[in-house]
């Protein structure tokens, strides 16, 4: 893939992740077979761009995200993350340390805190790890209160400025987040990622199951990330969204990047149309 002027933020080399599964051989006996979910995958992610990952079910897209964000350990290969001139090998790092290094994640399912208020969903997403120490909470209450007010102002600023039209969050900010509609929960999941300055965002099907109006809002939010010079790696099945916002597109098949290029090139490719879209 062509790299931007500012270089790549993520370089994945020879990444593999397999599971063993039982299959029957020709004699009808159970034997263990290695099944590769990710197999010898190479990918360069250019900084400040939207890169869409498309591919059929089981192609390995979500597994790739789980490996990058530390929830699954790869069997082999390297994931080099390069924020601000540093080089960090992500394989083997804990998920929370990967997040602290600047990689944000939005899951395929709505992983919002349903019992918490909408506002608390935002506040908990802040990078205030020191404030979450219990003794600090007890002993430095005034300092904590001041910091909490700053976080509150930041969350309100995000609500006021990100959702100019049809803003449900200001009115519902004190309600449990579980009371929001599915689309609003997706938006909240994305808004939460603005609470800290991530360098790279992994968004897993943000537009799945939402109405066209919310899809437009989600597209605008993703473009907002890019305006902040953040990089977005996006798993997306809605090809119109891919065409509209992605700078590059990767087609995944059998745990590898089978094709990469501009969205028009990849989506227009005859092989992709045949195997992915069934045309």
């Amino acid at each position, binding site marked *: 893939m062509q790299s931007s002027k500012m270089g790549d933020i993520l370089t994945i080399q020879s990444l593999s992740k397999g599971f063993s599964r039982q299959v029957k051989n020709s004699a009808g006996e159970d034997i263990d077979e290695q099944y590769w979910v990710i197999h010898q995958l190479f990918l360069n992610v250019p900084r400040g761009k939207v890169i869409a990952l498309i591919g059929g079910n089981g192609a390995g897209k979500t597994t790739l995200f789980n490996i990058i964000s530390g929830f699954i350990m790869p069997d082999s290969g390297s994931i080099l993350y390069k924020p601000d001139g540093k080089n960090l090998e992500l394989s083997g790092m804990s998920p929370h340390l990967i997040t602290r290094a600047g990689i944000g994640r939005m899951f395929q399912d709505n992983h919002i*805190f349903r019992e*918490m208020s909408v506002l*608390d969903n935002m506040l908990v997403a802040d990078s205030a790890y020191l*404030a979450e120490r219990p003794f600090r909470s007890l002993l430095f209450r005034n300092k904590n209160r001041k910091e909490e007010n700053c976080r509150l102002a930041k969350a309100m600023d995000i609500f006021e400025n990100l959702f100019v039209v049809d803003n449900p969050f200001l009115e519902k900010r004190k309600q449990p987040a579980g009371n929001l509609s599915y689309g609003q929960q997706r938006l909240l999941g994305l808004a939460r990622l603005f609470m800290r300055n991530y360098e790279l965002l992994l968004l897993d099907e943000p537009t799945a199951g939402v109405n066209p109006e919310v899809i437009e809002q989600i597209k605008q939010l993703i473009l907002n990330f890019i305006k902040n010079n953040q990089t977005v790696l996006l798993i997306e099945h809605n090809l119109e969204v891919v065409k509209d916002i992605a700078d590059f597109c990767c087609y995944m098949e059998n745990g590898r990047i089978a094709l990469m290029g501009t969205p028009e090139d990849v989506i227009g490719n005859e092989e992709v149309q045949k195997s992915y879209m069934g045309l």
Partner: protein
Amino acid sequence: MEYVIHLIILINIYIILTTSSNLLVGLTNLLSLGQAALYGIGAYLSVLALMVFHWPLIPTLLFSMIITSLLSLLLAWPSLRLKGDYFVLATLGFQLIVFTILYNWVSVTRGPYGIPGIPNPKLFGDIEISGLWAFFVLSLVLVVVVVFLFHNLIHSPFGRALKGIRDDELSMQALGKNVTALKIQAFVISSAFIAISGFLYATYVSYIDPTSFNLDESIFILSALIVGGLGNIRGPVIGALVVILLPEALRFIGLPDSVAANIRQIIYGLALIVLMRFRPQGIAGNYAIK
């Protein structure tokens, strides 16, 4: 009047127990069956400080809280990496081990004979906490302090992080939170404050034996918490009130003690079943156990 004061002291001991346990069960969704073991450790350590070291009240309390919380680390460190039922089983194992040690280490704990004649704690110099009213004031002061501290914890960023773990652990990790460290901190703080109940119980009753800290007691503490309600301050307080006052109410019906004890167990069981079915968050809680 003395009877009422006695009940209030018992309620205060249980408010500290349920409020401390709420941090673990109600805020972090960690169902622990080892609460009575920690309660017992706190009580025996207090007795050690009072009878062997002859320390006054505050050093005794601090000693009991610090050592109990350090011992709780032995349980927290390996078991908090376990999830759900496995964690419950680990705490059950801890409860059984502690009870067995308290029961069989006769040279130190006097085992089933218990430790009688626990002296009154000294406030400063020769000023003793002695008599019903003095224990009433002491227990009230400790309850107010504990409830105040836990109120602040629940409404702090730390409390919010624990609620996040309760709601969605995966999401908390994805937001950069060290979930294991937060759980360990919750466990250690909860244990330290449970030790206060142990201190109060040992010094007020002036006799302890291992049967006061067995698995039944752990289930009793958990029941009080679930009946009262999880996730806020009101629930644990109401739970303690219910479990102490309910058996007392049965006294006035005129049932013989042996029957009343069994009826009490049946009522607790029924209350739990009815609550789980119709109000899983308890009488005044705002979170239903999962």
